[in-house]
């Protein structure tokens, strides 16, 4: 697939180890690319570089073949943006703001904008200054999506949204993906990344730690199960069997093991004589992946 966003050796050093260092990756056309990291890890810096708001010290970003710094204006013709920091120009109501944005973008037909407003149940007649965080975020989402741009760059787009609206956003992202749009989003809400992203890049302290493919992350991984025992004696006995134990809890007599699907039968045979209270499947989450990787890095 064609690489639509190309980042090579991108470096922006703010001193004291802050900034981003030697980022290289690319985003393919039609892909939803997630960007995860702790606060201050460099997500926003990367996005600001992509939007041409800051000039890289080293390396460069090309979007659709255009340099993100030199051809910033050209890029904006097919990029929609949701900034991480939401503050609107001093224009009064949400309706006025969206109309002005439509003017800037040269949009004449506002039907898609109105569809989005309905979708998010947004009251655009409210004054921008008096809007809650969630309402502001929804307004920003509408502003970014209303021109149906080919590429969407979003900095923590679900901040301040309630769970229902978050689901709407996921729905919208998937709908745009269906239409072949490319989406780049940063987040620390793992759920929305899991439901939407084809690939996720993990960054920490300004460095890319890993880029995980969705396929790889879903299929080939071992699974985790939590097993609860009725009696302490049996719980202790099971510990001696040769399984990879991730964590244990003496008080509740339960433990979590990691096991591949191919070993399932063996596990059931082992468990046969035991008095089992419950077995819980614990879905692998990006969160788990993330904390594990980060922990390894910190060691």
């Amino acid at each position: 697939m064609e690489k639509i966003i190309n980042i090579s050796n991108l470096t922006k050093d703010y001193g004291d180890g802050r900034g981003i260092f030697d980022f290289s990756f690319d985003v393919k056309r039609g892909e939803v690319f997630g960007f995860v990291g702790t606060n201050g890890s460099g997500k926003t810096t990367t996005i600001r570089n992509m939007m041409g708001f800051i000039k890289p010290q080293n390396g460069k970003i090309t979007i659709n073949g255009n340099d993100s710094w030199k051809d910033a204006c050209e890029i904006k013709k097919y990029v929609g943006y949701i900034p991480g920091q939401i503050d609107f120009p001093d224009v009064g109501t949400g309706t006025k703001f969206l109309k002005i944005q439509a003017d800037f973008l040269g949009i004449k037909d506002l039907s898609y904008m109105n569809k989005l407003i309905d979708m998010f149940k947004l009251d655009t007649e409210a004054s921008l200054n008096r809007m809650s965080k969630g309402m502001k975020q929804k307004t920003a989402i509408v502003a970014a999506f209303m021109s149906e741009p080919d590429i969407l760059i979003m900095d923590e787009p679900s901040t301040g949204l309630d769970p229902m609206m978050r689901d709407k956003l996921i729905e919208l992202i998937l709908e745009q993906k269906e239409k072949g749009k490319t989406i780049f989003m940063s987040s620390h809400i793992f759920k929305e990344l899991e439901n939407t992203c084809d690939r996720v890049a993990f960054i920490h302290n300004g460095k890319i730690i890993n880029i995980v493919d969705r396929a790889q992350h879903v299929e080939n991984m071992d699974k985790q199960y939590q097993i609860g025992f009725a009696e302490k004696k049996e719980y202790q006995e099971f510990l001696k069997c040769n399984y990879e134990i991730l964590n244990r809890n003496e008080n509740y007599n339960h433990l979590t093991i990691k096991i591949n699907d191919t070993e399932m039968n063996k596990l059931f045979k082992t468990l046969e004589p035991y008095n089992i209270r419950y077995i819980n499947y614990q879905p692998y989450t990006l969160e788990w992946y993330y904390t594990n990787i980060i922990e390894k890095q910190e060691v």
Partner: protein
Amino acid sequence: MFSFPLFKQTVKSNLVIWGAMTLVMTVLCIQFAALEMTQSLLFVIFYGMMTTILPGIYVLVTANKLLSSQVDSGSMAYVLSTPTRRFTVVFTQMIYLTGSLVVMFAVQTVGHLIANTAMPIALAKLGYIQLPGNLTNTMILQVNISALMVCIAMAGVCFLFSGIFNESKYSIGFSGTFIGIMILANMLAMFGKLGVGGLDNFKYITICSFYDYESILYGVNDWIIKMIFPIGIAVASFGIGSAWFCKKDLPL
């Protein structure tokens, strides 16, 4: 190069302060010109101080709002995430800032011209006893052009700070200090001229000295030559401010 939607947005969000300043200036001007007891102060107080203080406050507040405060709050992101060049943004804001000053002075000048046509004042009455004849409409026009140039230069310097700083507090701090010194020094220099010894030297530290209404009243052309300096300051500061804004990192 020029963005009409941005211009419209800028006009709307600055309408109140512009309107207030223009109104105050025009009303003050007509009042000073029309009332018998204040006529002698028309030049000392109104043209001497008000035509730099009121627009000075206006440019200080507005220049900061045009760039720096929008970068500081992050709202600039919306304009710049549309296909609008940074240069288009600065250029449009610059046109607004100078244009709004031109219109402000135009409104006030028209006000004064009407008042002066209805009720001409002898120059002797304005405190220039040695001068013959009345205050002419040409003189009023020239005085205002001279004042306008100095105000545009002050606007340029404020715009320069607004373009350089990403944080409103620095932009307004530097611009405020600048405008404050200019206006204060101008006032002190004026007291010097009115006879307070030593204060006269303050005229050397303020660009308001390039606004020379007395030479106009005396019919000398000094004011035209003196306009070169504020024009130079305006061109340089608007130029540097714009270039700086186009090249700097924006935290949006």
